[in-house]
């Protein structure tokens, strides 16, 4: 994707791992759309758009990885909370494994390059 030599576009990276990030946030505790976005940004992923998070939540929910329930609120609108179900937890575990082996491989590559240069 970045074969033309431009620096890595963070938003492109995020697209691939947004599922994992959202699952990870929800594994911590159940949350509603805007709160998920805020927590992602708080943890440093500030290139994420609201639409991406909302779209991802809808898709994961549709795929059966999330449970969902509405919580009435005294001030403000009713909030739709999302949380992991068994399938979601399994997906998170698998994705985490994939991610770790992926980063390990990439770390290895990058470290190998830096040691070779040194």
């Amino acid at each position, binding site marked *: 994707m970045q074969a033309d030599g431009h620096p890595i576009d963070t938003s492109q990276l995020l*697209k691939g791992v947004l599922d994992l990030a959202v699952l990870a946030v929800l594994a911590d505790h159940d949350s509603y759309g805007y709160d998920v976005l805020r927590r992602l940004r708080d943890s440093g992923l500030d290139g994420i758009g*609201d*639409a991406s*998070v*909302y779209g991802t939540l809808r*898709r994961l929910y*549709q795929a059966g990885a999330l449970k969902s329930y509405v919580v009435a609120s005294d001030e*403000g609108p009713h*909030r739709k909370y999302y949380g992991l179900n068994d399938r979601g937890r399994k997906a998170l575990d698998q994705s985490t494994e994939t991610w770790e082996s992926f980063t390990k491989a990439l770390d290895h590559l990058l470290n190998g390059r830096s040691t070779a240069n040194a």
Partner: protein
Amino acid sequence: MPDSSQANDVASYAAAVRSALAHLPAAEREILLEDLENHLAEVASESELSLRERLGRPEDYAVELRAAYGAASEAAGARPRMPFGNRVTALLRALTGDMPYRALRALLPELAPGWWVLRAYLAVLFLAFVLRDGTNLTPIPNPFSSGGVLQILATLIAIGISVRLGRRAMPVSRGWRGAVVAGNVAIGILALPVLASMGTGSNIAYSYDYSTDPYVAAASAGYYPGVTNIYPYSRDGRPLTDVLLYDQEGRPLVPEKTDLVIDVPNGTDGLPIPNAYPLNERQANGDPVVAPRVALPPLQTSTPTPTPPTPSR
């Protein structure tokens, strides 16, 4: 931001996102957008800023939403799709990325109110067409006839309903929305024969008085009441002058008294001849009365083949 204007902000932003995603398959759009208003309301309640300021243009939001929803679903295999569906989606994306198409799409919301009015008009027109058996239908009903007043009123009411439907000011459920779409298509199709039956209007004026051949109608109308002059023509179409007409009693045929001034010729005996047609008439102010243009009926060419007179001995 006050609550009501915030609600408006959410509603209009959501509507713009929906219309930007209008090309998606209905099922997918429904799942994707089911919760949109609620979510936007959550976002809106977090800040005083408008949604546009915080989230950018609704069109861009829609694109991002679509990408986040669609792109990864293929990768994750969560929702395996038919290759054909993939191709269609790809085609749609290519089309919607096309500039003229986007420009047209952006224009559609502005044209929508015009369609709301037009469909109401067409719907009532079709109704009138059915109820009146298609006769005497004009683009704008005659406001001085009871049917016309009714039709105009019905049109106004229909426009009101149509516009409310269009703006979704009425509570419209999902099933209803399908019905509205079907209604739009039906109106478009049904209106065609009605519009075709309207014709150009010129024959409407004629059909009123002369249901048949004008000559027949004129002849059966009789020439007495309202007749102020008579213009005789010979069989081969030449206008005749000084034709003396008499009725069945042998009395001179005299026209009704009118404002017209008649120059009555005198006979050699000095007496006036009131029945020499066409009468030499003038308007009361002295202007001449112009002879009418007449269309002569085609006659059978029973032209008298002059039989040579038998030579008498």
